[in-house]
């Protein structure tokens, strides 16, 4: 087998050195009843060519987003990633190394993480950030649990336009970790005012910007309300590119920002792996979940980096750890860091402007289609449409014409009639004039 270097001669020699007469003998601690004497019932070994054929066949059974006119978002966005990013993250020294436990031979990963933490802090407008979480949804849950620790309270208020997956993930944790979640009704119009709900038991209020339905809002007042009540404001961002153009949560008084970083540097990959961003205030750093790279010096006085504040973490603190996370999204964070390094302030801002402009153009175009109403007054690169009939079948029909027309709200709320006609549509820099025309034309025809 191509991945196994031992030859039968090696095996024999090693068994002799060990003093065992067979490999089976090495498994003697396994109860006899549990030892399989033959391979399980699965296909036998295959060469590269066969494996490639088998998987390519499955890949061919999917509709590639890039081959369609694609307008899906709802927390996952299709952006153009420069070729240099994928080239660099595939360097074996990054790809095939472990968590940087031995700093002397991990300075590459450690410095990159330190740069990642800095970039995340800069775009969110926060003081510090960690070295990544699994994804935005788990970042959200961890943010709420951190707020519980910081405030020693146990109630979280979740806005109605926080991404449903984030809400559900947080609610799952609430059930088992034993805290209360007040999850507001879905709020496509973004009219819900949460300030009045904040009380002395409230650990945090969780809002999203832009909201799940695309609205862009200023949460400064809500932040003040929270702080007055001794609660924290957690701001969710599912489209990191928006931070290039929209006032960052840090400037609105957010205490914790939990975001999805996929948009920068990472492909769609059917939803994973993605990368959770997690940023907060310096004073809360010892309550933060996840890994942190920190600056220090070596014995010769040269600047270097190490993993630090690990007394928060499971491998030291065990049941008292701030989180049980160990493996995170390192390589996706690296992709984020490289893409962001290429963008810089000028590129990041420009990218955001293009996304916004495309969305504005698309919104106007689609709103002009009979039977379509635009829901949003404000938005960044995503908005909600009210169709004159259920959105799901419309999306199915358009897929048949090579248009991935957006995400029907019914995908998340199948049982809510009021969500049935809602379509969530996103535009990015990857959408062309022709894409938009095809969408508008297709929608016109399907709704006729």
């Amino acid at each position, binding site marked *: 087998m191509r991945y196994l270097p031992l030859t039968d001669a090696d095996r024999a020699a090693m068994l002799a050195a060990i003093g065992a007469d067979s490999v089976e003998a090495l498994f003697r601690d396994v109860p006899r009843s549990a030892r399989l004497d033959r391979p399980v019932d699965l296909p036998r070994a295959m060469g590269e060519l066969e494996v490639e054929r088998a*998987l390519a066949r499955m890949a061919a059974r999917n509709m590639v987003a890039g081959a369609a006119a694609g307008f899906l978002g709802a927390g996952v966005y299709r952006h153009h990633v420069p070729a240099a990013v994928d080239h660099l993250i595939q360097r074996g020294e990054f790809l095939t190394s472990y968590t940087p436990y031995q700093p002397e031979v991990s300075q590459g990963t450690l410095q990159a993480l330190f740069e990642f933490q800095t970039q995340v802090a800069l775009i969110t407008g926060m003081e510090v950030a960690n070295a990544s979480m699994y994804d935005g949804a788990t970042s959200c849950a961890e943010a709420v649990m951190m707020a519980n620790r910081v405030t020693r309270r146990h109630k979280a208020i979740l806005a109605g336009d926080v991404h449903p997956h984030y809400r559900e993930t947080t609610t799952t944790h609430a059930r*088992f*970790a034993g805290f209360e979640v007040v999850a507001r009704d879905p709020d496509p119009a973004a009219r819900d005012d949460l300030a009045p709900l904040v009380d002395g038991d409230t650990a945090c209020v969780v809002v999203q910007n832009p909201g799940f339905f695309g609205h862009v809002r200023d949460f400064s007042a809500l932040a003040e309300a929270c702080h007055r009540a001794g609660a924290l404001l957690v701001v969710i961002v599912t489209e990191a590119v928006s931070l290039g153009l929209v006032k960052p949560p840090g400037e609105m008084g957010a205490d914790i920002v939990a975001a999805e970083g996929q948009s920068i540097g990472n492909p769609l990959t059917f939803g994973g792996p993605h990368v959770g961003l997690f940023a907060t205030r310096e004073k809360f750093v010892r309550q933060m979940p996840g890994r942190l790279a920190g600056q220090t010096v070596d014995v010769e006085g040269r600047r270097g980096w190490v993993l630090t504040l690990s007394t928060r973490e499971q491998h030291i603190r065990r049941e008292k750890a701030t989180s049980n996370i160990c493996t995170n999204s390192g390589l996706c964070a690296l992709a984020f860091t490289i893409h962001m390094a290429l963008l810089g302030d000028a*590129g990041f801002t420009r990218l955001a402007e293009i996304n916004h402009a495309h969305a504005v153009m698309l919104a106007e175009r689609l709103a002009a289609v009979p039977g379509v109403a635009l829901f949003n007054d404000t938005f960044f690169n995503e908005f909600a449409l009210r169709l004159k009939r259920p959105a799901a079948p419309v999306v199915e029909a358009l897929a048949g014409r090579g248009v991935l027309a957006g995400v029907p709200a019914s995908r998340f709320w199948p049982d809510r009639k009021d969500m049935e006609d809602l379509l969530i549509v996103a535009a990015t820099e990857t959408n062309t004039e022709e894409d938009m025309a095809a969408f508008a034309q297709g929608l016109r025809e399907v709704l006729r």
Partner: protein
Amino acid sequence: MSEWSQAIGAFGRQAAAAETISGNRGLMIEEPLLFERDQPGRCGVDLPAPPPVADRLGGLRRGGPTGLPGLSEPQVVRHFTRLSQKNYAIDTGLYPLGSCTMKHNPRLNEKLARLPGFADLHPLQPISTVQGALELIDTLAHWLKVLTGMPAVALSPAAGAHGELCGMMCIRAALDARGEKRTRVLVPESAHGTNPATAAACGFTVDAIPANARGRVDLAALKAKLGPDVAAIMLTNPNTCGLFEDEILSIAEAVHEAGAYFYCDGANFNAIVGRVRPADLGIDGMHINLHKTFSTPHGGGGPGAGPVVLAQSLAAFAPLPWLVHDQNGFRLVEQAQGAAAQTLGRLKGNHGQMGMFVRALAYMMSHGSDGLRQVSSDAVLNANYLLAELGDHLTPSFPGPCMHEVLFDDRFLEGTGVATLDFAKALIDEGYHPMTMYFPLVVHGALLMEPTETEPKEGLDRFIAVVKGLAQRAKAGDAAAFRAAPRFTPRRRLDETAAARKPVLRWRPGEAGREAAE
């Protein structure tokens, strides 16, 4: 001091003195932070001017610049290439990091994960347009179920610890469904930190069970701790001492008799894959680190994937989404309804780590059922070979045979003034990544070595020779030389205490940064 340590000492001094003008040393080139390469007006991408539109931001434009540095593409490529050169990796050498299963990561898997048919799929496309992706997930699930003998598998967990969370939540949900309030979870002292942390995150209290002299769970002690308030045991098998829990059937029996569940930390599945099915050991739930046993790359810390195989008794509580197959093909159940009414709910966004699924399945298919059996055989053989060859020079904590990894403690360093840490750092100078140090906590100054099956015998022989040589030097009284190690790395020992005392977690303008040569 021996000639060796004199040389080192002299070397250490001279090395500093021999600094170059640039601070570089040939191919090892200093690289500052991105932020120290900033030039306003420089950019590594070319984007067209945005079409002019009336903005819809409701006056919420970002005020000032982000502060992100401006670099050109050549600088960015060079920056990260240089950083990568300061890392050790499987691709560069032996990485015997116990409990982490640092095996070869095939490039075929990287190539396939990048097929547009997988990498360029949106998770919320109409189900009719992603049947191939769902077929792949279903195929992976089938392999995992057959290899473990378990009837169900939850695929969404993003890593091992996340899988633990999923498994322990299933157990809590099952207990709730039974109307029982059990709060205590038994965890061996040798367990990985994520186990107790997970139990706590699920609202359980953790009760440590001691190990016996043979490095296994003390069955008597375990039985004594069992009771009506015990929800489950979290057991790693093979355990973190690299030993198979030979009384596992009795453990399972006792746990089940007490009405508790048996959760297994499957991080060490590589030792038994293809040879032993967890189902045959009485396990109710177990996560599998696809980034260990099934070779998806660790990427300097992640991402991973931690699918959890579940017994019938826990299957109903598996997290959303569920993948089902009916006459119209594959379908995702994304709501707590019908058969999924008892689901514990969602654990993360979307449907799991697809990118890892592709890689893991490609790895499994490449090996096949016969090859996977060979994987565990060779992994165990390699570890026992290290035990046999190093047994007289280091101090094995327990007699063999071991499984896929071998545990030594620091008794062989007694009186040498050399600590496990120093020994590890000396290995770095020799071109090796150290073994896992100071874990598990059940022995003193642990050195846990996991060679994996993808290391050739010649490579192990060279490693053995070096470890023996270092052990001799330690015993010869060269503590100073060990404490001076590593000497040939981009940085020598780093001050971790200072890092934690005054944390510097991000770059800030004007902060000290030594510029490096281009």
